[in-house]
């Protein structure tokens, strides 16, 4: 699971009002090469929750993202490379996503987060 996906997900358990961001329990993290596409990154920047991305990136062991970021930083190639690495190349292969409100663990195995709810959570 890339952090792009993590940035889009929340705990949708019935009754949970604050399901985002999901905390990451990392068991196995791998890096996967993705072609660098500045236009895609610039496009995605406005849609990403930066605070959540920076925290998630740190949880996966990559602390090179600034705490806060503004659109003016998109002109910097260095910034875009870091953004690219954090958003698309870091992979949570095994671990879990934890609901910040209830502590419910959504397992991630073979890189696939399992977001399906149990009967009593629907």
């Amino acid at each position: 699971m890339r952090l792009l996906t993590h940035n889009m997900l929340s705990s949708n358990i019935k009754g949970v009002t604050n399901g985002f961001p999901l905390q990451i329990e990392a068991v196995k993290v791998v890096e996967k090469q993705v072609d660098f596409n500045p236009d895609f990154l610039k496009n995605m920047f406005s849609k990403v929750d930066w605070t959540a991305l920076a925290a998630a990136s740190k949880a996966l062991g990559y602390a090179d993202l600034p705490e806060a970021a503004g659109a003016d930083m998109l002109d910097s190639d260095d910034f875009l490379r870091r953004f690219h690495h954090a958003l698309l190349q870091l992979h949570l292969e095994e671990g879990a996503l934890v609901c910040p409100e209830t502590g419910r663990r959504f397992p991630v195995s073979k890189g696939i987060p399992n977001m399906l709810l149990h009967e009593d959570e629907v």
Partner: protein
Amino acid sequence: MWYLCVFYHRLLDYRKPEVESLAELFGVFNSRESESGRENGNPEKNCLQWRLPQYHHPDSPFHFVDLPSDDIARKIANRSILVKGVYELWGEGSTYEELEEAIKAYPDEQKLPYLTSESTFKITIDSFGKVMSSEEQNDRIRSFSYIPFKGRVNLRSPDHKFWVLETDDSGSNNGLPPVDQKRIFFGREVGTADRKLLPTYQLKSRTYLGPTAMDAEMAFLMANQALTAPGKLVYDPFVGTGSILVAAAHFGAMTMGADIDIRVVRDGRGPDCNVWSNFKQYGLPMPLGLLRADNNLPPWRPGLKEVFDAIICDPPYGVRAGGRKSGGRKLLKGVVGPYTVPDDKRTDHIPSTAGYCLAECVHDLLDLAAQMLVMGGRLVYFYPVLREDDTIDTNFPEHPCFKLVAACEQILSLRYSRVLLTMVKIGPYTEEIAESARIQHLEFKENHLKWLEEGNLRSAVLSPVDSHSGGEGYAKLEQGCDGSILID
């Protein structure tokens, strides 16, 4: 400028919408918009002008289309799946004499640049619906000696390709309604489709397949309808084995997919036979994300919107594969009360699911698309319809955020078709729309059983045909495009 557009004689309903989508992709309507001073609501703004050749039926493979330039015409043809070729027409006629007059009357300044002594050329005869011997073809080719070709013939890789295209004489059986008179066209090839894609991507050589994997030709058509292009993000909420996303990735898009069945997205049939390996097989970039999620209860964070450029999918509408959603059948029916999964059993617990009827599935899909598509983004999906008296009900799903731009029918059996709907997002997802979607969501939940029964297309497809319609006891379900019929 008018071009002769010749189609492969298949998927007739899909031909023009594909060309129109590609025209949009290659910016035909942007330039038109600036010319006409950005007139909003002009109904012809996003349409191409089409014309039929004399004596031709709308199902004919021959059409004329108005395109701004050779360059655009070539791009459209090269990217398309159903365009056999786009030609600059030098002349047409009902007889070879009429054709000769027409070609001679075509302005020299159009012709001479392609007839110079430095260039090579080739003439090919293509007759629709009949076979011509090679002597006959050579005689025909020689008869064009009145065109002042200065260059040499090169059959392997000519600079300019000329085509003599003719339809059969009237009355013969070429699968089309008879024409009063045959028509012969002579034109210069501007571009052709790359059908080599299809054998490369054909399903029978794909490693990981499911029972409802989308046939390669159709997947490419869907990707074209969705204006798939490099740098765009395409999502399939019913990803299965990824057959639709493979086509989107081929055209350069980033992809994401979800499925409720975790075995399909996570495990496949082993380490080298899963959704990822289907992309690896063709050297395509892997999907950016795959997840297990329920389209009925999507796990997107609040406030997330307008992230996907296109959503392309084949929803599970219960004929070949039934849809599932979270919540047990008994639970939703009220037979058992709400219950709690014991803590020690939570980890390996397999949540029960219930049937997911067509109406609810489409409602969720439209709501997802309204929220998650960028403005101008496209939702492309199949919608099942019953055929009665050779016609179909054309009341397709509607949504205030969307405009329907194409509905292409593919007939699957005597009684059952699927229609590929292409919708464009034209309005933002507002609070009011979100609220009405929420209310409808609750209504679906309350009327679960009722919807399940009403939405039961499957029983209509498979129930006995009325006795007057023939001896067959059951409606005939033709073989699906992936060669399998699955009825669960």
